[in-house]
């Protein structure tokens, strides 16, 4: 129960990774708000156990109202996880301006807005000497490119830089800021990548594609949302009190290797 007594907001909290983080935080004793566009999230599953907040992270009014609600119910916020994100599977030539803007609105502006309006509540949480923790979602794709994911790669690079900037600015206030950079994690987003227009798997079945992708990883598997929740749990806890401003790559060793030639 390393998060006992802490208050957490997880955006994208009813999606693949967000839902796993909410579940883990609750098991660790935190009071958890799952903020998402709707209560069933991208998995279209039943509501989870965490308290639901209806939130569109691209709307400043909406973000402000949600943080006001947290303030009136809890008076402080110890943990903010910015897990809401979208992925457009296109090259820049095929990406419309609207799709580009929407990618940045959710992945970058959303992180900016929720963090901005959470800060006053997080300062209060940090007053007692324990640090407050913001966890952003970067990506393996913020370091190296996957083909046909141009806008996504660019937004994640922006989140990485924003993470370091926020850590510099708000560290003195007792607020730690880190980003988790997942590789391939079994979520609706990954399944869409296998079947989407941008990835192109020839005439192979999804099973064959999934096996091929697993085999490229040194650990011979891609991750689960629970793997990501394990790291989020640590970064949110007081055990991580000296961890800030870092980009934590969690990818089964994928990016440690040179391209895997089939020889």
């Amino acid at each position, binding site marked *: 129960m390393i998060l006992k007594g802490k208050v957490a907001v997880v955006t994208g909290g009813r999606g693949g990774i967000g839902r796993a983080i909410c579940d883990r935080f609750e098991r660790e004793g935190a009071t958890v708000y799952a903020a998402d566009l709707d209560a069933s999230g991208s998995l279209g599953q039943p509501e989870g156990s965490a308290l639901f907040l209806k939130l569109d992270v691209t709307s400043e009014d909406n973000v402000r109202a949600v943080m006001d609600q947290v303030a009136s119910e809890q008076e402080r916020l110890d943990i903010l996880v910015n897990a809401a994100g979208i992925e457009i599977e296109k090259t820049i030539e095929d990406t419309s301006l609207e799709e580009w803007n929407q990618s940045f609105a959710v992945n970058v502006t959303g992180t900016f807005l929720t963090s901005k309006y959470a800060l006053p509540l997080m300062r209060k949480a940090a007053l007692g000497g324990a640090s407050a923790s913001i966890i952003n979602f970067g990506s393996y*794709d913020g370091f190296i490119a996957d*083909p046909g994911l141009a806008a996504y790669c660019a937004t994640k690079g922006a989140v990485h830089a924003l993470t370091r900037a926020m850590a510099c600015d708000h560290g003195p206030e007792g607020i730690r800021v880190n980003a988790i950079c997942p590789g391939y994690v079994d979520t609706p987003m990954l399944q869409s990548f296998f079947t989407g227009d941008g990835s192109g798997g020839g005439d192979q079945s999804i099973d064959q594609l999934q096996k091929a992708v697993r085999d490229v990883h040194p650990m011979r598997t891609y991750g689960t949302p629970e793997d990501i929740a394990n790291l989020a749990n640590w970064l949110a806890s007081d055990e991580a009190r000296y961890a800030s401003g870092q980009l934590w790559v969690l990818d089964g060793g*994928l990016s440690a290797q040179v391209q*895997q030639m089939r020889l």
Partner: protein
Amino acid sequence: MRLAKKKALVTGGRQGIGRGIVDAFLGEGAQVWTCGRGARPEDLPDVVGWMQADVSQVEAVETLAEGLDTLDVLVNNAGVQVEKTVVDSTDKEWDTVVGANCRGVFNTCRALIPKMNSGGAIINIGSISGHVADPGMALYNASKAFVHGLTRSIAVDHGPRIRCNAICPGWINTGMLEAGFDLARDPAAARKDALLRHPVGRFGHPDDIAAMAVWLASDDASFATGQMFTVDGGMTAASPLNPGMF
């Protein structure tokens, strides 16, 4: 003639990337020396000075340094590769890889930095394998990371008198590459797969690395120091995971 009047030593200039750099430096007007463990290669142009030396041996490098009065450009290209994991590597292989790739660079830098003119440049050949691991090449990968670290240290300690940078080549077609493909179960498929992973659509050539070496050696690069310059046709900019290839 971007290297006119410059005196350059390129270690390991018998063949491959080293020879490509020797030829390019000559073309830009430099006075070039090169060295290797064996006798002077027959096809080496007469204007190039040959010194027989194993860079892993301190005495040999000191003798080599005595033969040079001053120097403007030092290219540490000599290196060896052992294709094994940590568990399979022998003590002798450790000595071979670390001797040539780590100690060799240290030996030449220690012996020659005092002889280098102000404004001089050291160019080390690092590798993309010093950033990310090639499977089954543990000591080689680690030795190249050493080269990257030493590059930064020399840049910091010996600036502003000397600049020091590293080039990190990707897959360069030196004959070893084709031999590797020939060993594959399906050589044609392996070649095609490897090519697909290069956004420029081809493998590298020693000239590609030599072109970067010329720039780093020239005064055009007078503000560049302490950096790793990757020349790999875009390979390491792309994810190794591209379902379109499977």
